């Protein structure tokens, strides 16, 4: 699984499911401070990415992610 695929999938989920504006999805964007998401959104983001990419993400992983880059890095360690 390439990082490009992960980033593209994440972008699609953020736009489609969380109604984030495309121009807000930039490197270093913080889910909670920049994208108006919260802890429940983080759990559902984990569930959706897990389904899309068939990786081993768990609800507790939601506590580890703060930024798009951190999340992509986490997924790459499980891929």
């Amino acid at each position, binding site marked *: 699984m390439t990082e490009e695929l992960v980033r593209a999938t994440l972008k699609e989920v953020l736009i489609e499911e*969380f*109604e984030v504006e495309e121009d807000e999805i930039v490197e270093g964007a913080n889910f909670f401070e920049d994208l*108006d998401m*919260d802890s*429940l*959104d983080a*759990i*559902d983001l984990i*569930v*959706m990415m*897990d*389904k899309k990419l068939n990786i081993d993400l768990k609800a507790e992983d939601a506590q580890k992610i703060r930024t798009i880059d951190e999340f992509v890095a986490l997924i790459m360690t499980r891929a």
Partner: protein
Amino acid sequence: MNTRRVVITGVGVLSPLGNDMQALQEGLESSRSGVVHVESWSEYKDFNTRVCGLVQWDDYKVIPRKSRRSMGRVAIMAAKTMQDAVADAGLSEEQISNPRTGISFGSTMGSDEALFDSIGTIAQEKTFIGQNSMSFLKFMSHTVAANIAAMFKIRGRNIPACSACTSSSMAIGIGYESIKYGMSDMMFVGGSEEAHAYNAGIFEIMAATSTRYNDTPDQTPRPFDTERDGLVTAEGAGTLVLEEYEAAKARGAKIYGEIIGYATSCDGEHITTPSSEGMEQVMRLALDDANITPDKVGYINAHATSTPKGDIAESHASYAVFGDKTPISSTKGYMGHILGGCGVVESIIGLISLKTGLLPANKNLVKVDETCAPLDYLFEHRYGNHDIVMNNNFAFGGINTSLIFKKIEG
């Protein structure tokens, strides 16, 4: 005991006949039907009804995403009517979030769609993996009240009223009593229901759905008519803003009417079979609460759902209280049975009646069932000069409600 007067100062509604009071009034006056043929229900085996009253509205993005994410259609529609009612009443954020401002909302179920999406997988695959955090918040019993409270930053009392077909009439009663007896100064009240095959299916199991008019949906349901063959489920939502009268008057609020009487009581008998005695009792209790005699009521909006037993029982209860001189109609003939939302939508029809004098006809009533009591059934629209209306609703569990509204002069 010192009590306070309670008035209605804001209205929001989504119904199969239209999505504001004006559209609802025009739908009634033109005798339009909001019942349509639903072909997609044919995917269910041995399920025969194909008619449902549907709301033509899906502009979900008027509800902010963070509020909407935990709402199914049932709560989204209610939230939309809350938005409209708050705007109609012209309220500030401070008034809405005052600790003495509360809410009461109900529905028969939470979101059926969310329930189906979630529970089926859990039951079959015996795992919770893959479930998101929002499903339960969409289908839990008090999803409407909980979501509206969070979205509008309600700080006062929140009493969900989930009692099937009396959910929203009971919510209005809870709001009325909260203000009347001094626990709150303002209450947002109402209810909602979303259309789903499940709602119709549970009634079909009990042989209570309409199945003979699938190709002529505007001809069903037919409350009190000899040719009625069961109820038609529907969706819809409504919100009323209730305020203490003196405060409403002081701020120059537009006043739709006053709630002068409410009662809820229980049959304490059969879980589904309606009791004429229980219906009669709740009407008499509401009249007592309003401190009026039956002859003062100028129009009765009946619950009558077009089931064989229910319509007969209600007609005899109405006759026992009112005799045969009070105009009566069930407006379910126009839109079907909104279940948890019917009480508030039918109360709004009562407010339309107070404002315009409209006594809406029983749509689809051609010949009254001979086993129904002799009442002043409205066969055509009439216009009266009445100033008091009653709205009755009855639910599974023998739960009954009766509300009485009065025009405010000046």
